[in-house]
């Protein structure tokens, strides 16, 4: 019988102990892998949101409940249908320190034919836009025509299909890459299309009235880029004073809030993983200590049969390594099964931008989780191996009589 088959026999002879060790290490690997994936996805989501936002200040109608509405719209795709007079755009452009300003009009669909929920339709001006256009350019290399739409990654339709909104048919010309934010569930079109859709909505009895001004000339939000070297805070104050019935929000503040929430979640996950690891390590040490007493006589017999101390400790270490590696592998696979199919659920529950890492990064994290867990299992078994190899066969067997 060679050493490997002896090791396998030792493990299968006590299935309860072996399964407990495998389960314990699987739990360690699963917590490490899942935690790393969630934290990394949150960080990628925040980076993606920062890249996509592109503006320093957003001007929205005062009744848009300022930050809350915009943050919910960006993070969770909550439908925002607030309007202000389009003349606000000119006032914003006239404000000192403003380099670029671009307006967007938001419209909520009724139940779109893609889905049984409403989707956010965002109309933008391709000539002046600096927020959506660079992002759309990654998927579409020609100008966005009338009655053409670009859809977010989560809107379930394909390029070339027709998309019906308020009984008007729009052709899908591009699908955007995932951002991990609420913008993935939006539909983008040019200003002519959004005005046609606003008209169609009115025909269906859905109005976008504003208190004053021309109802046909409305905007929902104005994205502002400030001149380089100008203090965005100062421009923000000027905009708040200059544009009536509107609120200017600094995106940096919004990003800081999201970043703070993300840090909180990351910290909680880190503390939980730490607690799980400390508990599991204590249990591992207890299990191995119990094993010392349990296997004393068995190992004394091996010594009598001619096994050296080195061979004995090597055999125990190999047994531990095999159990730890199997557990780490099972735990990582189980973690992947739990995390990846439920990405959308995690994202909506956390209410934070969430963008899962690519296959290469996931594979790297999986390897790290398996190696770290297996190494920790081996280290905790090392003390047991050295103690058991010191067993004096004569004394141990006499004691047991």
């Amino acid at each position: 019988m060679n050493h490997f088959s002896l090791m396998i026999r030792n493990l299968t002879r006590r299935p309860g102990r072996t399964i407990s060790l495998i389960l314990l290490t699987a739990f360690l690997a699963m917590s490490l892998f899942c935690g790393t994936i969630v934290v990394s996805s949150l960080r990628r989501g925040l980076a993606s949101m920062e890249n996509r936002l592109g503006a320093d200040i957003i001007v929205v109608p005062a009744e848009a409940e300022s930050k809350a509405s915009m943050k919910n719209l960006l993070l969770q795709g909550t439908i925002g249908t607030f309007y202000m007079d389009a003349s606000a755009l000119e006032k914003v452009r006239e404000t000192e320190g403003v380099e670029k300003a671009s307006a967007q009009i938001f419209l909520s669909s009724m139940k779109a034919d893609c889905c049984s929920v409403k989707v956010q339709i965002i109309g933008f001006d391709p000539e002046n836009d600096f927020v959506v256009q660079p992002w759309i350019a990654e998927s579409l290399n020609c100008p966005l025509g009338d009655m053409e739409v670009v859809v977010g990654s989560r809107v379930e339709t394909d390029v070339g299909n027709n998309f019906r909104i308020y009984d008007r048919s729009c052709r899908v010309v591009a699908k955007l890459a995932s951002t991990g934010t609420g913008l993935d569930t939006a539909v983008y079109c040019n200003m002519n299309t959004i005005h046609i859709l606003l008209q169609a909505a009115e025909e269906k009895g859905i109005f976008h009235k504003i208190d004053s001004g021309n109802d046909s000339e409305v905007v929902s939000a104005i994205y502002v880029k400030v001149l380089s070297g100008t203090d965005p805070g100062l421009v923000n104050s000027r905009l708040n004073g200059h544009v009536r019935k509107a609120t200017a929000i600094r995106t940096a503040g919004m990003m800081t809030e999201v970043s703070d929430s993300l840090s909180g979640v990351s910290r909680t996950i880190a503390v939980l993983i730490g607690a799980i690891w400390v508990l599991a390590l204590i249990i591992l040490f207890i299990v191995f200590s119990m094993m010392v007493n349990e296997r004393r006589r068995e190992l004394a017999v091996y010594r009598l049969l001619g096994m050296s101390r080195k061979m004995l400790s090597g055999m125990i270490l190999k047994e531990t390594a095999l159990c730890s590696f199997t557990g780490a592998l099972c735990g990582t696979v189980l973690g992947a099964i739990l995390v990846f199919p439920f990405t959308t659920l995690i994202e909506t529950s956390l209410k934070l931008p969430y963008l899962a890492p690519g296959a290469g990064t996931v594979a790297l994290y999986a390897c790290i989780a398996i190696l770290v867990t297996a190494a920790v299992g081996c280290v905790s078994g090392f003390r047991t191996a050295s103690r058991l190899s010191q067993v004096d066969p004569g004394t141990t067997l006499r004691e047991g009589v």
Partner: protein
Amino acid sequence: MKKNVFCGLLLALAAVIAIGSVTVLGPCVHEDGSEAPCIGAGRAVLIGGCALAILAVLILFIRKSSVRIVLFFISLFVAAVGIALPGTIFPVCRMDTMHCRAVMQPAMVILFASELIVSVCGLIVEWNRIRRERA
């Protein structure tokens, strides 16, 4: 006791599928009371879960290995069909933020896949038992 481990697991998973399909793992519910496109998938999953539960109970009470093998084989088939129920055989909502896409479909695929693995294990155990008895 060991003989019934796999049918016990089969029954527990079937119960999770059946109860889940009418509670937290069920199809979307519209506030206006209208029927969601995924309602059929939800009903099909419930029927699949109940069918697996009945099969598991039958396996639990039948002692003849050859009959148990046939029942495990049927449960394997039902579990394989169950994986394809939400999304492939029956439609679900098309936007992936919907409850049926975010929760029901992945949960049911995992649960039915687990049922399939348990059924395969049960089949192998019963098959080995028959071989041992014959030997």
